[in-house]
């Protein structure tokens, strides 16, 4: 949270997560689950602005949703959304979208980071937190985690990938201009 830009980016990410979680419900073939598009936005912002913005924005956005949604604040899931941003941001460190640099190599790295982070966050951390803190039955929370994690993974790779590609394409590539003698 060092620069002004990070403060603003976190706030906008939180607002986007809020809107996407509350308003964009894309039905999937599984019952009672919707596609977690918000994971894609968290991933994209983490790549663009770094892990701190991903963490704070994801955390705040999910917290706001929980505060206004009526199911109470599920701290485990709120923190995990933030952690997802943190992990993706850390894993994609060095990918510089501002320089228009998002080729095949970066895309593969991005996808691997997303898959690993999704498994770690929704497959491991969220269910374990629920079992330890809320004493929920293990098989229930693991199935919930599986659904959210899987749809988050698909959304992150497809939508997040498109976002990174589109954003990088809109920027001038580093070294694309040469000085004329």
């Amino acid at each position, binding site marked *: *949270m060092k*620069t*002004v*830009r*990070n*403060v*603003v*980016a*976190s*706030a*906008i990410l*939180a*607002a*986007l997560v*809020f*809107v*996407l979680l509350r*308003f*964009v419900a*894309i*039905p*999937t*073939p599984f019952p009672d689950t919707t*596609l977690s*598009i918000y994971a*894609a*936005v968290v991933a*994209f912002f983490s790549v*663009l602005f770094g892990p701190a913005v991903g963490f*704070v*924005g994801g955390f*705040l*956005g999910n917290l*706001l949703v929980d*505060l*206004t*949604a*009526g*199911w*109470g*604040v599920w*701290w485990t899931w709120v923190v995990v959304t933030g952690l997802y941003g943190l992990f993706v941001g850390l894993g994609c460190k060095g990918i510089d979208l501002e320089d228009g640099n998002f080729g095949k190599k970066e895309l593969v790295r991005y996808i691997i980071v997303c898959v690993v982070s999704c498994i770690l966050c929704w497959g491991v951390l969220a269910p374990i937190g629920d079992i330890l*803190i*809320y*004493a*929920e*039955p*293990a*098989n*229930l929370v693991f*199935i919930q985690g599986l659904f959210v994690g899987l749809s988050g993974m*698909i*959304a992150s790779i*497809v*939508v997040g990938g*498109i*976002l990174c590609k*589109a*954003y990088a394409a*809109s920027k001038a590539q580093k070294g694309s201009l040469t000085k004329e003698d």
Partner: protein
Amino acid sequence: MKLLNYIERKSPVHSLNGASKLFCLLMWICSTMITFNTPFLLGATILGAVAFKLSRLKLSEQKGLLYFLLCFMLLNAILIYIFNPERGVELYGTRNLIVQIWGRFTITKEQLLYQFNVILKYLSTIPIILVFIGSTQPSELAASMNKIGIPYGFSYSFALALRYIPDTVASFIDISRCQQARGIEMSNKESLGKRIKAAALLVLPLILGSVEKIEVITNAMELRKFGTQKRRTWIMSRPFKTGDYLTIAIGIGMMAFVITYNVINGSRFWNPFT
């Protein structure tokens, strides 16, 4: 769209400082989250109801939220039962069978107490969240976060997020209408792949537009020298009064009770079976 449902009203709860309310809320949520002490949860539920009454908010104002909460609570209770009808037996370590319904679906006293606890956890936290949201002005919330020790960059992010949610919703609705006018289908009729593609078409302009907005806001804030000092003052912050110390005491009291109970009892569960 009204986001946090702040309702302007004259009441003892409204006149409390946002920082003390936020502190009490955090302690409240954490203590009821940790404990499985049924009498404590019952007490917290009653206290929450009293606070709701004191805040002069009306149940009819929160109808949608309450309806949703009830559905969610019921669904969660049913899911817990279906997935593990003997979860209570595992947790309490004893087994007092009441009826055997069919196969693994049994009803035990332990399961009933466990599920009652889970429901109480909802009932004890929801009213207090409603009271907090209904009685605290969003911009005062950010000032209070800073006051209880959260870094001001973080608090300011929170305030900014609250400020920009209505804008984001508005542009989201615009984009969604535009895309629908272009014939983009997002309902069940389409295949999953097409739906993801449609979502991308909807989300893409929204997000790329927001990224542009970040630059504008950043420039505006930098021009006003945001973030150059270690501390900042808040226009919405208020001095502490007696009621605020009482509110903080309630929060500390609840947390202290839960922690001492856990230490003395050796577990988080209030267990009448042994």
